[in-house]
């Protein structure tokens, strides 16, 4: 599909404020917790031990308390749930065994918060502790107790993929380097804590369920499964959602618990988690150790890569299998690198479960890769840009692991940030303690095979047109702040030739919208955008027929622009939008059409086991330059400025694309500089926003965004994703800037002041030892 030329009358490509933005700036936006009203207050009782066998739960005293409406425990739900049909091993409340500190074991609903708190205290809980493991190494020890009986060695999944001949590749190299990088576990820390408001409708035995979810369809399915209900008796509503970043891209235990409590009380229940509980619900990026070997020729050409990745995944499966597969799959697709060996291990530990987080599976591996490339470039006295340019792909192509690459804007990205940052003129001339670093990254535009494979299209959008002349777009795509509803409105408006304001987008209510898989893997613009265009074309066909009948012309000759229908080549024959709508409705009443999108077979990845993960219709590509200052006395790094270019195919809404790129670069900065979860014997030490530090406005640099448009042949208007691809480039670009500034190579993330000082001391000591040896 060709990108539209940017003109005043085209909606696609025009900077467009969010269609649901007015509600957000006036306070009219209602988020889940805002809907609680007079609902009963629900609270969760959580395990005080990290690993143990539940000997006894007695809820008698709690149930007898005045004002307590319902108490539920693990005994009330015998169905495991989990995002992957092949790895469902988690219960909404623990049964028999607890596997992490903070795991739900019971829950109450009461008339008010104080009563609910008293009821939790009245529940008698007896747990016999088991040995607990807080690192991947401890969990993998030969004598370790298994967290899950069917997973020997506490390894949830190991992956071994070899493409090309990595050994031969390394042998051909002029320089081979190996390094091990340790990246801390991090959390999404989306601003809105988790919440669900569930209402049981007695008599009809129906459940009306509001939640903060990014995946209403999955939550709908899992509620039906765990509550043993006909899905038709559940209405799933997604109100305004305060950010996701992957934190709610799978159904979470609190959602099932809210459903169970609502049914037990026979009424409305609000379960609003605290920030601490939201952090414990976790599903963040796992602590990851990457051991990487790279081979490079003297001219910068990469010859081979061997990567071993160990992820500490927490107590349950979640998205873990996908995470460990992504980590290997996306070693491919950025550079021309035919020889890659990947060994991945996803390990269980007695900690809150990890999951999908922005840049799912790829961020820590990309950090290791780009950082090692930067060091080797330095060793070979090559410019980091030169090394990247020596390894570019030429689209279209399929990677050795079967990933389809149809568009590739990385060369332009490199040119743009190199020029904008003044790289050639400024690098090495910034003065002491200041440096420039760069790195590249990429990400998928939607997984070509969804985790719940049903055979249905990947996305469906329906459009309604009625007497009022408004076009209502019905989509299940969850708007969570990323601008998906605005993207749908623009796509529809542009295709029909009408104002964006004429399109009303309804999203996220299962009573009215078509099913959608959800807001994850950056799938919405590519898949839902294409479906929206398809639906709008179908509507345009009906309108063109009506207009053609009135204008006595061929429908194929009818154009609509600026809400005026005309016959191509004729200046006189024109009809207004209202006239054509009236004519079209006169044929058969109000119009409903739909459009759908299905990923082509060839985009669905290689035939090897796990080959579907990483497969996509199009990759976004990004390059960025980071300028940083290092205070060697305090170990404090200041990010002064960032220049980033991202190839999003085509910017349907350049305003939102910029916002996504800025936000993702910034989130990469948080991970690179300061973010880290910490536990003491399984107890979270980061359970607030003071202890889990995210960058404030004072810590945050100007970010200069350059949009590169490679126009993907399959993307809607040529578009690809924009919200994830730039994230993983930030940490290595910062590490490179630090190396450039003070000559210090860091192997651990985050580059927090304590780690920087530790590395500086270690470096100084090593230098002293070397000098002593020399003197002796």
């Amino acid at each position, binding site marked *: 599909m060709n990108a539209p030329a940017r003109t005043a009358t085209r909606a696609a490509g025009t900077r467009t*404020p*969010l269609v649901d*933005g*007015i*509600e*957000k*700036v*006036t*306070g009219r*936006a*209602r*988020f889940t*917790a*805002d809907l609680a009203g007079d609902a009963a207050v629900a609270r969760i009782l959580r395990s005080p031990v990290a690993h143990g066998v539940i000997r006894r739960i007695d809820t008698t005293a709690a149930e007898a308390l005045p004002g307590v409406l319902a108490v539920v425990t693990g005994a009330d739900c015998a169905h495991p749930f989990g995002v992957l049909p092949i790895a469902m091993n988690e219960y909404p409340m623990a049964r028999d065994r607890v596997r992490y500190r903070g795991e739900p074991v019971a829950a109450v609903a009461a008339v008010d918060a104080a009563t609910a708190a008293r009821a939790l205290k009245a529940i008698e809980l007896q747990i016999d502790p088991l040995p607990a493991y807080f690192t991947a190494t401890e969990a993998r020890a030969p004598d370790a107790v298994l967290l899950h009986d069917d997973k020997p060695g506490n390894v949830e999944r190991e992956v071994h993929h070899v493409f090309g001949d990595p050994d031969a590749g390394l042998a051909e190299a002029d320089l081979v380097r190996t390094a091990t990088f340790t990246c801390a576990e991090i959390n*999404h*820390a*989306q*601003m*809105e*804590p988790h919440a669900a408001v569930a209402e049981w409708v007695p008599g009809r035995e129906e459940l009306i369920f509001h939640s903060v979810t990014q995946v209403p369809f999955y939550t709908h399915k899992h509620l039906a499964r765990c509550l043993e209900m006909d899905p038709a008796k559940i209405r799933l509503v997604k109100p*305004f*959602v*305060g*950010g996701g*970043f992957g934190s709610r891209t799978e159904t979470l235990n609190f959602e099932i618990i809210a459903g169970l409590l609502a049914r037990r009380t026979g009424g409305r229940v609000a379960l*609003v988690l*605290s*920030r*601490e509980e939201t952090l414990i619900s976790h599903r963040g990026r796992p602590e990851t150790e990457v051991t990487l070997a790279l081979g490079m020729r003297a001219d910068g050409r990469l010859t081979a890569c061997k990567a071993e990745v160990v992820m500490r995944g927490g107590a349950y499966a979640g998205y873990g299998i996908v995470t460990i597969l992504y980590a290997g799959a996306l070693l491919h697709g950025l550079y021309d690198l035919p020889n890659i060996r990947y060994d991945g291990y996803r390990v269980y530990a007695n900690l809150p479960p990890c999951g999908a987080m922005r840049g799912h599976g790829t961020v820590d591996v990309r950090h290791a890769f780009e950082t090692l490339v930067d060091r080797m470039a330095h060793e070979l006295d090559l410019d980091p840009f030169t090394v990247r340019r020596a390894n570019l792909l030429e689209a279209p192509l399929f990677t050795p692991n079967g990933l389809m690459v149809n568009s590739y804007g990385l060369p332009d990205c490199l040119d743009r940030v190199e020029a904008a940052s003044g790289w050639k003129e400024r690098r090495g001339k910034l003065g002491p303690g200041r440096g420039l670093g760069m790195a590249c990254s990429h990400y998928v535009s939607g997984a070509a095979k969804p985790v719940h494979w049903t055979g249905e299209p990947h996305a469906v959008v329906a459009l309604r047109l009625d007497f009022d002349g408004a076009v209502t777009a019905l989509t299940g795509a969850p708007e*969570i*702040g*990323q*601008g998906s509803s605005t993207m749908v409105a623009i796509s529809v408006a542009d295709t029909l030739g009408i104002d964006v304001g004429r399109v009303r987008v309804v999203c996220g209510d299962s009573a009215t919208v078509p099913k959608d898989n959800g807001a994850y893997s950056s799938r919405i613009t590519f898949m839902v955008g294409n479906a929206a265009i398809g639906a709008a074309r179908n509507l345009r066909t009906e309108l063109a027929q009506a207009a053609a009948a009135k204008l006595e012309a061929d429908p194929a000759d009818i154009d609509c622009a600026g809400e005026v229908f005309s016959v191509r080549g004729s200046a006189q024959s024109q009809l207004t939008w209202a006239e054509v709508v009236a004519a079209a409705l006169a044929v058969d009443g109000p119009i409903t059409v739909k459009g759908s999108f299905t990923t082509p077979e060839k985009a669905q990845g290689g035939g090897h086991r796990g080959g579907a993960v990483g497969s996509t219709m199009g990759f976004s590509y990004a390059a960025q330059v980071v300028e940083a200052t290092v205070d060697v006395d305090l170990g404090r790094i200041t990010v002064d400025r960032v220049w980033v270019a991202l190839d999003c195919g085509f910017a349907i809404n350049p*305003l*939102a694309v*910029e*916002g996504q790129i*800025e*936000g993702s*670069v*910034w*989130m990469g*900065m948080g991970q690179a500089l300061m973010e880290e979860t910490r536990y003491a014997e399984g107890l979270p030490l980061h359970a*607030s*926003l*003071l202890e889990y530090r*995210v960058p*404030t*406005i*004072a810590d*945050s640099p*100007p*970010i200069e965004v350059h949009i590169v448009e490679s126009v993907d042949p399959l993307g809607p208007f040529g578009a690809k994703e924009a919200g994830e691809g730039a994230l993983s480039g930030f940490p290595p670009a910062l590490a490179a800037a630090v190396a450039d500034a003070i000559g210090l190579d860091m192997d651990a993330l985050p580059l927090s002041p304590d780690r920087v000082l530790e590395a500086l001391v270690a470096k100084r000591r090593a230098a002293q030892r070397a000098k002593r040896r020399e003197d002796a």
Partner: protein
Amino acid sequence: MTRILRLTLNGRARADAVADNLLLIDYLRDAARLTSVKQGCDGGECGACLVLVDGSPRPACITLAAQCEGAKVETLEGLSGPGGALSPLQRAFHERLGAQCGFCTPGMVVSATALLRKTKRPDEGAIRAALEGNLCRCTGYVKIIDAVQTAAAEMAADQTAEAAG
């Protein structure tokens, strides 16, 4: 103990029976139904619940309702102009994409309103200093700074025009 709390909320006088230990955030959300006041953390960490008490930004989640006896309290709902017209800050946050998910936005706009009432044309450093207590996880703050600067410029231009007129 319960007391009668009298205050001016978004320009209207109110009297409510409140418990001595009732937090301002619960009073505003539950009694006054002003749900723009958001609970984003477990107390005083994120700035999503900021409201203006006699013109100064205060975290409603660590303020007692009783402390606002006789005070003028303003929330985001009260910052729109006559007839519900968007204030320059509200419009700029909307048009410049200062709000993505919108959860931190009420606190952000409240903080920025307090800033612009005191400082007509704040430089970037002053904006960063004023909003340091407001966390946002979506925007990287780039467009928030842009929105505040845009609103400040517009308000200054309006005043110049008024003075000239």
